[in-house]
């Protein structure tokens, strides 16, 4: 019995299986980790244009959010969005293909690493301008509120983004209109090469919720169950019509900010400390302790993910880059 054959699954199916099964969540975290590591390697090989922002170490946050929401909910997230896209169900081919600039990518290879999306699982095009997605996510919640359905939206952003105006305006608007939106700050301790405490005078970004009269919560971003529980609870609150919440997930990115950044600005030992609480290891141990999976199974999942990734990469590399004609299609929906 193989874990899954995700390449055969549609995004909706990938999402459903993740939501249904804890072991699938584990597998997805592994999938993300391996994909991100491979992306960095591919960047080193010159196969990825421009830049790319990976999320190793932060897998529990995105998978936890995907587990706590449904595909009709909307997610606005950032350029550091490969993991979120995979979590929500976007296929590996669509993600890796886009990062590599191939037609098989989710926008045909014309957008790139910073711009992943799939409306079928609620993923808005990921945002390359810091903070831009915060109010836009809240706008999806406005749609739900105006139409009177019970969808919610999740705006995901970094610690650094909490210092930009769009954060302030987005949270304030969501509060006064009681929009069904959850704001998740992935506090990975750094904005580019600068430690959060050099730009942000509060220890917990969650305290900023008080400025908007909404609840603020801190959650251990390395513990997927904690993320799912917290996000799930405040998503339910939003769905009930009780308004927005700010959730701060404390986490860490293992790699540098982008492309070839070696993150030499980090104090010695910091990475090691975080590696001790690796979200995949923690979750794996827990699943074993619970008796849900045994260690051999964990290894099988990893092996499966590795071979799935290889197959994905083959498929992606066989896909051509977009054509001149594709580039020249009008950028408007109406063609004018």
């Amino acid at each position, binding site marked *: 019995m193989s874990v899954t054959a995700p390449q055969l699954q549609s995004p909706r199916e990938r999402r459903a299986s993740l939501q249904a099964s804890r072991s699938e969540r584990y597998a997805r975290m592994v999938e993300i980790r391996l994909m991100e590591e491979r992306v960095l390697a591919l960047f080193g090989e010159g196969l990825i244009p421009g830049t790319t922002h990976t999320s190793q170490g932060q897998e529990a946050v995105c998978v936890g959010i995907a587990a706590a929401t449904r595909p009709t909910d909307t997610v606005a997230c950032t350029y550091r969005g490969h993991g979120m896209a995979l979590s929500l169900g976007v296929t590996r081919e669509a993600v890796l293909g886009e990062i590599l600039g191939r037609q098989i990518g989710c926008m045909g290879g014309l*957008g790139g690493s910073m711009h992943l999306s799939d409306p079928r699982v609620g993923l808005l095009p990921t945002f390359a301008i810091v903070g831009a997605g915060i109010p836009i996510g809240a706008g999806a919640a406005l749609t739900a509120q105006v139409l009177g359905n019970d969808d919610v939206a999740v705006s995901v952003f970094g610690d650094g983004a909490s210092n930009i105006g769009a954060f302030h305006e987005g949270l304030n608007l969501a509060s006064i209109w009681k929009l069904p939106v959850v704001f998740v700050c992935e506090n990975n301790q750094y904005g580019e090469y600068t430690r959060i405490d050099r730009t942000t005078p509060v220890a917990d970004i969650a305290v900023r919720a008080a400025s908007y009269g909404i609840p603020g919560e801190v959650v251990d971003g390395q513990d997927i169950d904690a993320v799912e529980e917290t996000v799930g609870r405040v998503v339910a609150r939003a769905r009930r019509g009780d308004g927005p919440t700010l959730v701060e997930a404390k986490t860490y990115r293992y790699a540098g900010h982008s492309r070839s950044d070696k993150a030499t600005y980090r104090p010695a030992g910091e990475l090691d400390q975080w590696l001790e609480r690796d979200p995949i290891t923690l979750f794996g141990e827990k699943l074993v302790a619970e008796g849900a999976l045994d260690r051999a199974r964990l290894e099988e999942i990893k092996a499966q993910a590795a071979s799935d990734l290889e197959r994905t990469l083959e498929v992606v590399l066989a896909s051509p880059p977009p054509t001149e004609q594709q580039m020249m299609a009008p950028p408007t929906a109406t063609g004018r």
Partner: protein
Amino acid sequence: MAKLRMNQAIALALAEEMERDDHVIVLGEDIAEAEGSFKTSEGLLKRFGPNRVRDTPISEMGFMGLSVGAAATGLRPVVEIMFIEFLGVALDQLATEAALMHFLSGRKLTVPLTVRASVGSGLGFGCQHSQTLERWLLGAPGLKVAVASGARSAYGLTKAAVRDDDPVVVLEPRPLYGRREDFEPGEDAVISLGTGELLAQGTDVTIVALGQTVATALAGAEEAGWSADVIDLRTVQPWDRELVRASVAKTGRLVTVEENQFTAGWGSDVVSDVAANCHGDLSAPPLRLTAPDVPVPYGTALEQRYLPSAEYLADQVGLLLKTGTCPRPWWEGQ
């Protein structure tokens, strides 16, 4: 037929579109209870209720962003930016997010967003509340920009914008809000975005105008000793290249009348297109009539000096016809 002020025509267009499609919502500062600083949303709150007609905090970046997200997920929001200058705190959401989102979604999402903003000089508001600033938006792939020249075109453009599946900015010259125009509202009044309108026909010169300067162009052409094709561009992005070129092919001369300062106004793009495509047709150099390259002055008297007037237009075109060269702008005579 209805004789409406421009602000009434806009409120009527919004009400009709809200009636027609309950995905249309309107939001902005003081647009609900106060019915808009310029009374362009009169009656909407009462008729459509607070779920669809919303007063916002002073957070242009925020509510523009919300509207982009709402548009991408199924609504058709109409956002009011009270004065175009306030786009300076929200441009990212419009020019970088809304404009590119259809493209960035692999062409799967649409962003049927309408942004309305008041523009222009003539009411004495001073240099930060008197510009037209369409130049901030020109050249942005994915964005359409229309400019009303009175009640009729405001009505037709607003309806077209709300129905369009792309982000459309409709600019409304403030001094026209209170001016009445007779026209027939209804489906036939909806304007196809991207098309200009030939308002007068003549043989000597093609005058291209936009917004407030349409009236200037018509007035200037009326009493003159020459005759002109007068075109209301109506949409400045994309603009009606065919209409302008065809007219210049006939008249052999082009004059743009612009409310903006001289450097890099929308007229430069029109002139540049005509220069490239109608070179052989041009019997005189193309002429741009604009405001000078200084900030809009306070006070309506100097403002009138600042803007190109109908008399100035008549004189300048007369000189162009007589000499076959571009007359210098008034401020170079100094």
